[in-house]
Structures are given as structure tokens and as C-alpha cells.
């Protein structure tokens, strides 16, 4: 089982990149959702 550590490292890096990317998209989506709510409230108050 030579190089098993390298194989695991490659898979951890691959999974890590996909996971971190998904988390950044989810965070940006949540932040924008809050911004939209704030903007809608401000707009409704000013009407």
C-alpha cells in the first residue's frame, strides 16, 4: 500500500475544495438574502 497517504491527501484536497466552494456560495447567498430584506424594508418605510 505504498503512496496511500498521497492518495488520501488528493481526495481530501478535492473534497475540501468542493466543500469550501459550496460554503462560500451558501454564505454569500445568505448575506444577499439579508441585504434584500433590509432594502425592501427601507423601501417600504420610505413609501
Amino acid at each position, binding site marked *: 500500500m505504498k503512496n496511500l497517504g*498521497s*492518495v488520501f491527501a488528493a481526495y481530501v484536497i478535492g473534497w475540501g475544495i468542493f466543500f469550501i466552494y459550496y460554503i462560500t456560495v451558501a454564505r454569500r447567498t445568505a448575506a444577499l438574502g439579508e441585504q434584500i430584506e433590509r432594502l425592501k424594508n427601507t423601501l417600504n418605510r420610505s413609501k
Partner: protein
Amino acid sequence: MKKRILIAAVVVILMSFAAYAALFVAPTESKMGTIQRIFYLHAPSGMVALLSFFVCFVGNLAYVFTRKPKWDWLGVSAAEVGMAFCTVLILTGPIWAHPVWGIWWTWDARLTLTFVLWLLYTSYLLLRTLVEDPDRRALISAIYGIFAFLDVPLVYGSIRWWRTQHPQPVIMGGSGSGLEPTMARVFWFWFLNLVILMIFLIHERYALEAMRGEVQSIEREAEAA
């Protein structure tokens, strides 16, 4: 929200099965040994990266002809997701190459053109941060994206046209190429899983871009009020 979590869970379960198949189901390759198991992540990631950049190209082309924001949203979403897959490709390659070739990296045609591809789409995403006007940003990045895509057929053809340190294709490589049946099944299972992951990530990223469009229209409405 519930649907989104459910789809994410299905993707994680499928990816876990794929990892199990790559590590424990696929037979050990006779020449390279265990390190060859990186192939099941590395090669499909490359194919899916090229597929994402093709989706980006379609979005860019459609935006230039229709000027509808939804095509710009698709373009940037596919470019970002393609970058994630291309990064996995570029990072897993050297981990596999080092024990087999004795070097982490070499500037042969395939590796160089793939690195250029990564730089081209990094520039695509950076370019979008430099232009403030949404319509102008969409048009400039669409035109740039169409030219950036020219590197994709070069990456695909590089190991077919030129002698490279990178191995010749074992998938769609013509006569004399091919995989042992179990290896082929594991490979195509990985490819299918990564295509599903790509569609899921593009869908999520597209929703984010659509929300940005909504913010811009609310801000315009507020300015007009």
C-alpha cells in the same frame, strides 16, 4: 431550503460511494500501484472543468446575441464552478506525478495549457470585479469569455497532437487505449457524480447571481423613489 439540503445530502452520499469505489472497488493498477487511484478524481475533474467552461462559453455567446442578464449569470456561475474543478485538477495532478515521474510539475503542452486555462478564467472572474456598470461588465466579460474558451480545445487536443510527459488519453483515445472494465465503471461513475455536482453548484451559484440582479433592481427603484 429543505429541497436544497436534500439535494446536497444526495450529492454527498453519491460522492461517498464514488470515493469508496475508487479506493476499494477499483483494482490496483499493475505498473503504478495505489497512487493510480488518484485517476478517478483527477481525470473526471478535468473533463467536468472543460464541460463547465463550455457552459460558460454558451452563456457568453447567448449574452452577446440576446443581452439578457440570465445568460451573464449562467456564464459567471459556470466559470466559477469550472475554476473549482480546474483547481482540483491542477492540485491532484502533481500529487500523482511526483511518485510516478519523479517531479511535481513539468512545462509540457498539456500541463502548460491547463495552467493557462486556469489563469484565463481567473482573469475572467477578476475582470468582472473591475467594471461597475452591470451591462458593460456583462458584455466585456462575455466577449473575453468567448476568447478564453479557445484554450479548451487546445487542452483537450494537446495529448493527442503533441508528445507530452502527460500520458496519452485512456478515455476517448482511439484504438489501443482503454481501461480494464471495473476501472472503466468506477471512472464513469465518478464522471457522472461530478457532472451532478457541477449542475448542483452552477444552480446554487446562478441563484446567488439572480439575487444580485434583484438587489440592483431594488436599488434602482429606491433611487427613483
